[in-house]
């Protein structure tokens, strides 16, 4: 969805045309010069997978990768992203194959309402690119800027650790105990 073109005549003069490279595809978009990468991704490129929870750099929902590094797209001007590689959640999948992070999040129930999930997936992807075998503390630290109000984070940390293992070629699913303590206990009737 894009704003009608003719509604801000006063701002016409300050519109720019730029080509953004997002998930390996070029998008040529026209937008007011002060618009953020978040706004242009969602409205100009129609990529609404990137979410907004504050637009002030406080929640992490809008995190995307810029040349592989995680940035808060609500704090980056779209014009500044031109000429750089932007990666969003829409580019995580390869064809029909989920990225190991997506697969681990699905299997472990690490996405509840899902609103924080795109930002967390992208932040985690950057972490794993730079540190293929992170400890739980390193995962917690890397995700400290990504708020999640639903999950309590335990499953997210667990899913990132598991995805890291899969990416290293250790496909074995780790036992639940390793992360959560006791499995379903003996059944009393």
């Amino acid at each position: 969805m894009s704003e009608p073109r003719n509604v801000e005549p006063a701002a016409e003069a300050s519109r720019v045309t730029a080509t953004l490279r997002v998930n390996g595809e070029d998008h040529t978009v026209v937008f007011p010069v002060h618009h953020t990468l978040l706004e242009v991704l969602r409205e100009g490129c129609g990529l609404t997978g990137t979410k907004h929870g504050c637009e002030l750099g406080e929640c992490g929902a809008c995190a995307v990768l810029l040349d592989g590094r995680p940035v808060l797209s609500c704090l980056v001007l779209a014009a500044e992203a031109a000429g750089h590689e932007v990666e969003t959640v829409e580019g995580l999948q390869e064809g029909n194959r989920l990225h190991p992070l997506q697969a681990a999040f699905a299997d472990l129930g690490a996405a509840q309402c899902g609103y924080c999930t795109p930002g967390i997936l992208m932040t985690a992807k950057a972490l794993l690119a730079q540190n293929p075998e992170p400890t739980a503390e390193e995962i917690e630290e890397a995700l400290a800027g990504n708020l999640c109000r639903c999950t309590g984070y335990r499953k997210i940390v667990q899913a990132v650790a598991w995805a890291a293992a899969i990416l290293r070629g250790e496909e074995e699913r780790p036992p639940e105990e390793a992360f959560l303590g006791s499995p379903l206990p003996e059944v009393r009737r």
Partner: protein
Amino acid sequence: MKRREGLAKLTGREPYVDDLPFDGGLWGATVRSPLPRGRIREIRFGAGVDWSEMIVVDHRDVPGRNVIKLIVDDQPVLAAGEVRHVHEAVLLLAHPSRALLRRAVRAVEVVVDPLPPVLDYRRPPAREQIQHGDDNVFKRLAIDKGDVDAAFAAAAHVVEGIYQTGAQEHVYLEPQGMLAWLEGEGEREVVVVRGSMQCPYYVHEALCYALGRPAERVRVIQAPTGGGFGGKEEFPSGVAIHAALLALKARRPVKLVYERGEDMAATTKRHPSWVRHRTAFDAGGNLLAQDVEVVLDAGAYVTLSPVVLSRGVIHAAGPYRCPNVRIRGRAVLANFVPAGAFRGFGAPQTLFACERHMDRCARVLGLEPAELRRRNLLRDGDATATGQRIDDGTDREALLDRALKLAGWEAKRTAHRSWNAEQPFRRRGLGLATFFHGAGFTGAGEVYLASRAHVAGLADGRVEVRTAATEMGQGTITIFTQIAAARLGLEPEQVVIAEPDTARVPNSGPTVASRTAMIVGRLVEKACDDLRRRLGVGDAAPGAAVVEAIRAWHRQHPGEEPVGEGRYEPPPGIHWDEEHYRGDAYGTYGWAAYVAEVEVDLRTYVVTVIDFVAVQEVGKVLNETLARGQIQGGVVQAIGWALLEELKVEGGAMRNNQLTNYVIPTSEDVPPIRVAFVENPYPHGAQGAKGIGELPMDGPAPAIANAVADALGVDPCAIPLTPERLMALVEGEDEAPVAGAA
């Protein structure tokens, strides 16, 4: 079974309301009251905005009743003369450009002649502060059992205490939002609203009332919802009406999405509470009498406060056997944004008081906290404060023992003593809470709701589950798929879950009160059974026979589908006396014992939860992954409420309405959380399930405060236990007051 709702969420394809296209539409915005109380003298439209191109809506544009319908008709859709809280909606604007819209909102000045506001709910109001009845009390409730005064006269020990909890903001990650548009012309024109919500039929009813329209001319559809926790129970009704009013005036689609700061400042909060306990014991540490007074800060309008108070008072005496109980509760007005539904719904407040008080009692009586609880926990055959006989076969002492064992209580106790003696600045402690949570609506609530669910056979042989139950992260779609598939002998892929759309699904009630899996899930089972009957397929026939019968039906009745219906019927033997608050307050309860281990840094007074154990009995666990997720998420929300989350209120307005200064837990704030379930199937819930979602909000705060008491030998009675409040406590100053509507 894996989460079914997962895939779209993981690939960025889930269409939350702000992701929906609305070509040619307008953005909406809300202009709000600057003062906590007063009369609107004038609304000034400032310079620098071309007002002729702006859609402007005020109270005169409300075609029906200017009321957001809920329990009492007191809250206006748009203030009509009087305002009762800062950020109350006064005016609505819409324009195609968000930038111009923001400028326009700033250019409007609402001039208010001030009236004396109530800024502290705990103080008796002066005459000129009265705004409701003759004492500003929205609701009073009383529970009486036995002879409390006689029991106190005979007591060996009497222990008193006052406990307070603060407001809490929901911080669902997706802010409130609605998209409204019109379909059809003239007499057939339908107002359609799609947005973020828990309860499509609440929104539908409120729209009909405010717009003065019959039910068939309003349609409400839930968009995927980015978290609710109660914050999207009643509040979305107002947002939906606002979006619809703008769309009706503009004759174009209007999207109204709150910004974070607006959402935090203007939406409902958890009720702040003040609770006084006076408790009598015999010489053996057995409870003789509980005398409890509960006061809730309801904010400026009634909203759901009567029912929040109801759940609060029913849980106030805890899961204990006590022959004599007196509970007095009231919900009172303050000129602050209305308090509303929030996970736990009054029970976390009164259970914080009860469980913190039990530890204090244990100390006075010279007993271990676990021992005092063990002596007094309800056993089968005992009755609760309302006289409800508990006879479900759950061994509540065994739950407690299991939690102590999982936490390594005894060993840690010993280890802490030597660790604390060696550490110059750090102290560790352990705390416990045993508690319960009534599952489903209170009292006769479910009977009044008279919920219905449908399961339809589709032409291709699949079935569609039609309910108004919404998915907002808890896994409703997965659970309902599991339930219907099991009941009909189908594969999950053969079950479709209908989008909650009031034009297509029956009213299965609101998605609140931990009732979805247990109650609506049971209706889905009944609807499956009814579908089998209509198709002439026996209960034991396999799924293939069901599919074949559905296809045969469609061949024989072209254009007509077989629909099974499930209707709510109360479990047999349930009696509730609303007038005297006696009897079976809930069909059943979830039971739990939680243990928190904390470390306190005496230089910074920062409390860190370093280990957490949550043991509960919630009937049959339908999906282990989802159930763990509910417990972990609830525990962490409660850690935030207990330690971090504090509203700074000045002049009746929340001043820290940003995520940088209203701090919720991050990934670095959470301890390992060991979750264990003890299963005891409940015969009247789907597959034996009880409610689960709210229970984990009840126990962590008192367990953490008890752990701090254990670590430092102090007696914290108010949360959030921020460094400032803890420092004052340790240094013997008065505890900082907990923000009510100060």
